[in-house]
Each structure stands twice: as structure tokens, then as C-alpha cells.
């Protein structure tokens, strides 16, 4: 559930911020969402990756089909030397996904690091359980 919510939130925030900001706003968008909603690194990566893969893939496909794929054909010949527009859509989705996934991963790592710190601070009065913090992230997932 948390995974689905963060996936949707990443997609939503990416879409909205790209209305006003440069394309790479998808990075900060995925990052912010995973800082706020903490998940295990792998899951965070997947949420960011899939969110942008689907967002960019779907947007590209939707825009292109309304255009009857006229431009996509010309541009894929130019950029990937292939008339197969699906490859151009996949490439688009993949670039978004890579940035989204990595930024989400970074967010998750930051959250874990902050969490660790809090845990340490919290754990000081209780004494010697510094290692528990390492599990904190996992439990949160």
C-alpha cells in the first residue's frame, strides 16, 4: 500500500512540477516523496523507477498516438536510427525511470540516515543498542 501510494505520489508530483520546472524536476520530486514516505532502498528505487517509467511512457504514448505517431517516426529515425516508435517511447520511459529510481533511492538513503541519527539520539539514554537502528529502515518498510 505504502509502495503504491509513494509510486502514485511520485508520478503526480513529477507531472505537476514539470508543468512549471525543467524536466529534471522529476529527480527532486521522487526524492521528496521517498524522504517523506520511507521505504526500503530497493522498494524506493522501484517506486521511483516504475512511477516515471509509467508516467513518461504513458505520456509519450498518449501524445504520440493523438499525433498518429507522425513525429515519433521521424524522430526515432533521427535519434535511434530505427523506424520503430515503440523503441523511442521505451527510451523515453527508461530515461525518466532511471532518474526517478535513483532519486528515490537517494531519498530513501537520506531518510534512513536521518532515521539512524534519530535512533542514535533516542538510543543514547537507553544505552547500548546502536545496531538496532540498522533494522529501523527495514521495519519501516
Amino acid at each position, binding site marked *: 500500500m505504502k509502495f503504491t501510494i509513494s509510486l502514485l505520489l511520485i508520478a503526480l508530483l513529477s507531472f505537476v512540477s514539470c508543468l512549471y520546472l525543467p524536466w*529534471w524536476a522529476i529527480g527532486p520530486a521522487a526524492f521528496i516523496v521517498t524522504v517523506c514516505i520511507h521505504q526500503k532502498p530497493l522498494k524506493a528505487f522501484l517506486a521511483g523507477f516504475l512511477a516515471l517509467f509509467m508516467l513518461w511512457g504513458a*505520456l509519450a504514448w498518449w501524445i504520440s498516438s493523438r499525433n498518429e505517431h507522425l513525429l515519433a517516426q521521424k*524522430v526515432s529515425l533521427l535519434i535511434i536510427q530505427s523506424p520503430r516508435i515503440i523503441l523511442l517511447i521505451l527510451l523515453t520511459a527508461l530515461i525518466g525511470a532511471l532518474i526517478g529510481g535513483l532519486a528515490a533511492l*537517494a531519498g530513501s*538513503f537520506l531518510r534512513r540516515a536521518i532515521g539512524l541519527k534519530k535512533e542514535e539520539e533516542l538510543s543514547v539514554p537507553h544505552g547500548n543498542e546502536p545496531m538496532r537502528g540498522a533494522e529501523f529502515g527495514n521495519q519501516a518498510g
Partner: protein
Amino acid sequence: MRYVPFLITTLVTIALIILFNSTLLLPAPLGKILSPQHGIWQNAEPADQDYNEQVSIPGLKAAAEVYIDDRLVPHVFAQNAEDVYFIQGYLHAKFRLWQMEFQTHVAAGRLCEVLGDEVNGNNLLNAVDRQFRRLGMGYAAEKALEESEKDAETKAEMDAYTAGINAWISRLPESQLPIEYKLLGYKPEPWTNLKSSLFLKYMSLDLAGSEDDFEYTNARTVFGWEDFQKLFPTSQDSLDPILPKGTLFEQAGLALKIPVDADSLYFQRKDSTAITQTKPDRDNGSNNWAVAGSKTKSGAPILCNDPHLGLNLPSLWFEMQLSGPGYNAYGATFPGAPAVVIGFNDSCAFGFTNAMRDVRDYYEIRFRDESRKEYFFNGEWQPTEFRYERIRIKGKPDFVDTVAYTLFGPVMYDTTYDGKRNTGGRNYSVRWKAHDKGNALKMFTLLNRARNYDDYYSALQYLDVPGQNCLFASKAGDIAIWNQGSFPAKWARQGDFIMPGTDSSYMWQGTIPQAENPHEVNPERGFISSANQYPVDPSVYPYFLGGSYPPYRGITINRHLSSMSDITAQDMMKMQTDNYNVFAEMARPLLTKYIQTGALSEAEKKCYDILRSWNLRNDPDERGATVFVLTWDSLETEVFSDEYAQTDLTLPWPHESTLLEILLKDSAFRFIENINTPETETTASVITAAFKKAAAKYIQLESSDDFLWWDFKNTGIMHLARIPSFSSVHLPIGGGQHIINATKSDHGPSWRMIVHLSRETEAYGIYPGGQSGNPGSRYYDDYVEDWVKGSYKKLWMMKKEQAADKRIKWIMTFNKGA
């Protein structure tokens, strides 16, 4: 330590963003380009794009409407002339912004700024930017603009047009930038009147910048004066000039003095230079003709025009109707300049062909020393002026070109610039008519409003460069042509070679008076035509014409028009797309007369039969046209290549008409002899050898299935930035050089127009492109197929009451905004 994974992933993410946002490692910033909300996907406009729009702009004087029809042709209805041009600018920018700016960047010598200084191994800095700067394109545009802006009316029109473009640019979000900006990675800058002026100078260069002075100078030296005159004559036997032979001319109004030392210092001079230039296509030319009511079925005149220019996408032309008080013009416009350029209004129609006159000459300059600060002229050292050309280069520091100006003009070639060609340390200043003050734009705005011959005549007075054959026909029944422009009055062969620039004796001595420019009004034969041939019989015209003049299209056109009667617009369409080859009609008998059939192999004989039985038409599926062109090219090589190989100098190639006419009358032409062989060649042996080589090529083509004329000719319309997938290539169209349908591989009829000036104007037109400049639009190249087939679109001069007509698909309303 616990922040390490975060830091590493963050760094990797940022690195990837930078990678996808730049061209550090990738050929293009793929993230930026492929982002569905920013990049190229945003240019994929819906197939059912809605062009309805309500525009509120402070720059407008009043409300206006634009009705856009099913071919995406805008019909502009405004309440005053300035708003007409404002909206024209807005629409040009809306549909063609990238090309407008790109073309003016080229004209200004700013290509390196956009593309970098090297593209596919071509040095753009030396070959393009510096050449344009040193030719003084910017200087010319500034001078013309200064003159245009002195005219309050022209200034207001240009200002309005510029404001309209900028209104569009200022509303353009980055996501909606034309795709070329995204792919090449730059952004549009504000438009200025200077850019419009630059665009017009670009056309001047295209149409009045292809003389062969350097090459002719070399040829005179290599072959000697006698042979030179034979190879590069100043008339033709087959000539059928624009004003028929027999037209009489008064004595020259200007008495010209040939320099006393011309014989030794000019005609017989042994001088050479290794300069070669990037030049406009020699076939930049056109057809136009008008028939009087006496020759038409309806009794009303018909005017036809098809300008032959480089074929590109987006097209040079944009179709529009411009309507305002006292103003209702329709036709082809230049994105980049106000007004309709080739078109018609409610009273008349106008069209142009290039006058081909030589208005650009070179003078050799003697500088006092390396500093180029002084040059020798009329016995004294004169100071030069310097113009500093700062060329920005993408990814590199700026390059500053310091160009010296003499009273002739800019010193284009000197020790600081030879375009990687050896000038032997000599300096050449260019004298070009396009550097003189002028307001050529005003001709178009006046023609748009012209009601009769007198209006047309006064409009013409503004055309200085490029000189044109300006054709006119009116509903009142008049037809007329003026070979118009500001033409230097020259003595015979003046300016064909580089001239001495150390005194005033070789300078142009004046401009041909207006009344002496060749013209014809309502001739008895009932038609007027021009196809870039000599405007007059050069042996009777009192001034030297210079330039080069292809004779054959004119012959075909006049032959058609003299024999035709009861002409309809449909007849004109057939004629405008005619593929008959009159050059071949004259050349084939020469070939068949001399080819020694006994010396041919079986396969060669088959080729010979193809040539002999060919119907002389360059229709797409003809094989004979392929054999003929191969044979003629092979013959030229066979005749001239041995003599031409003697030197490394760049030499001009004689015109087809010259070789043909020599061989038809002179069986002992010196160049027939191959200087590299011991045998004595004859016309028959040379033509036979040429045919055998051509046949070998043809047989090879047959095996690769490229032997049909269209396949062999391979016509394509390339995108301006040479992006193959944005181009329309390998089109099954006939025609070619010397043919009315002058479609060559990348050059041809860029706008075909037929206007029947009946009570209700009946007009047709088409151009090889489409109204939208966006490769993602279905209107990008939607006319190409019909253009290839030779079909036309009906040009609809809309009346405002017809707003409900079903052809109107969209309406843009313009309001004066706050």
C-alpha cells in the same frame, strides 16, 4: 558514514541528470529532448489540432479576424494596414519561426553560433560565416534598412511586422519551441527590422550573386582571349529573347568610356586566382508568362509564374490572404518579410523571374602595407575603414574578423582571408549593387495594393536588387513586363573579369536610366514570357548585360504560347508542368548524326535505340531522358576534361548551349582534339566515345534498377538543417534542366501559380511543402504529393461574408489587449 549511501546515490543521480541534460557524452541532451512535457513529444501536435484561438495583444490598433481554411491558409482581415502586417508577422512566427530565424542567421554569418564551426568535416567558419560577413551581408542589410526606415510608411509596416513576430515569441513557452531549437539546443531571440532586411539580402544573394568573375579570369588566362570568347560567348544562335528579336532600342542615354589600357590590362591580361566560392545554384531562375484576353477563351488575361529555387522543408513560401482597407492580396509570402511576394489582388496579378544580370564585380586593391589601413587609388593613398565582425562560435571563443572597406566595398579576399584558397597574397574588393541604399520591400507592399498598370509601374521603381523580370496582368486587360532593377551601365565584358582597382577608370560609370530598362506593354502577339533568357538581343541593346542566360525554357514557352488560342487555366497547368526537352530536340540530331553505330556492341546498340526512339520528354518513367543526359554529360567531359586538367585553377564550365551550338556549326572545334593522345580525334570519334561511356553507365544503372528518369534524377526536398527524416526524398517527378518543369534533384518550381483575371478571379497554385513548419504536423508536407503529380490547389480569395463557408475550419480572433 551513514550519509555515504545517500551522498553516493545523490551524486550519481545528479551526474545522470547532467548527462541527460547536455551533450557531454551523448550526441543530444536526451532527457531534455525526450521529456514528454518539455521535449520533442510536445511538438507532436494532435492530428486534429485545434487552431481556434483568441489572442489579446497590446500592440494591435484594432480588433481583427483570421479565418484559417482546410489547407491551413490564413485569411487575414484587419482594419488597417499595420494590423495586417502585425498579424502576418504573428502567423509567420506561429507556423515558421525556426526557419525565419535560421535563414537570417545564415545571411548574417551566424551559423557557427548555432551549429559550431565544424559540421560533417565542413569548416562553417571559413566557408559560410566569414564568407557572408566579408561579402558585407550585414553591411548591406543595415544600409537597406536605413533607407527603408526613412520612408515612414515602410517603417511603420516593418515595425508592425516585427512586433507581431515578437508578440508570438514572447508568448511561446519553452515546451512549444519549434523542434529544431530543441534538437540543436538554442532559443529564438527577439525579431528586429534588421532581420527582415537580412532576409531580403539573402534573396538578393540567391538571385544576384552567382557571377563567375574569378573563374572567367582564370579561363581567359588559361585559354587566351580568342578561345575564351568562343567558350563563353555573350549571345546564342538559338536565342529567343524576352523582347522579341527585331525590337529597336534608342542609343544609350549614358555614354560609356572604355578604359584606354583595357586591351593590355584587361582583355589580354594573363592573370589568375585560385579562388572558388560557395555560390547559389546557377539555375536559380523561373518561368513567367502572361497571355492577353485575345488569346484566352474567356477574353480575360491569365498570368502564370513558377520561381525555381532550392527546394527545402519548411518551404521558403507561406500562402496567405491579407485583407485590410484598400488592400486585398493573396499569394505566396516570405516568412521573414511583410507583404505578398508573388500573387494577385482584386485588380491584377504579379509575378517574377530572375533578371540574371551581373551586378557584382571584383576589383584588385593595392594596400600600402600589411596593416591594410591605406590603399592606392587615383594616385594617392586613401584610408580604408574597418568593420569588425564578431563571430560567436558554439563551445569556442569568439572569432573577430576585421574587414577593410574601400570605396568599392568590402575587401572580401586578402591575406587575412582566402577561404583556404591561395590568392597569391592579392586583395579583392567586391562591388555589389546589393550594398547600395534601397527599399525593395516597398515594391511588394505597393504591388499588393496596385489597381492598374500605372500603380504597378510606380511600385517597380523601388526594386533595386535583385533585378527581376516583373510581370503584370490586370482585369482591365493589360499585360506588361519590365526587366527591372538598378543595373550598372557597363561597356562590353566589363566586370566579366577581375578589374584593376587602383584608379577610377574601371569603375561603374552609372546606372542604366529607368526608361532604358527593357520592357514590353500589351504586345501585338498577345503574350509576354520570360524564363531567364536574355531580356533583349544583346547585339542591339546599348549596354552590356553580363550574367548568364539559359535559352531553352524560353524557346519552349514561346513556341507553346504562339500556337495556342482559346487558352484556359487548365491549359496553363498542363504547360507549366510540361516535361518536353527542347534542348534534347536540338542536341539529339547531332548525337545520332555522329555516333558510329558500327562501332557499338549489342548492349550499346540497345542504348542507342532507346535514345533514338525517345519521345524527347523528361517524363518520370522515360529511359531515353536518362540515356540522353548521361550522353551529354559524357560528351562535355570527353571534349573539355583534357584541356581543363592542364591546370589546378578553378575554371568555369561552358554552358550546354555553347557546346551544342559550336558543334552544330564547327566540325573543326579545337577542343575536340584530345591533347593527351597521339591520334587525331574527330567530332564523330569523340561523340562515339562519349556515347560508349554513357552506355556503360546506363547498363550499370539498369542492373541496379535506377534507370528510369525520376529514379536517376532523384529529386528530394531536404530539411533546411539537412535532417533526413524531416525531408521528403526520392520523389517520382519528371522534368529537369532546360525544361519548363525545371525540377532537378534539389531545385525546381518552388511555387506554381496561375491567375485567370476573369470577373471573379480564378486562381490556382501549389508549392512543394505545407503551411506548417512543424515536422510533427500533418500540414508539414501535405502539398508535396500533389506537387509531384502536377496538380494544383484552388486559391481562394475569401470575402469576409464567407466566414461560414465550410472550407473555414478555424477562426483566430485578435483583440487589442491591455
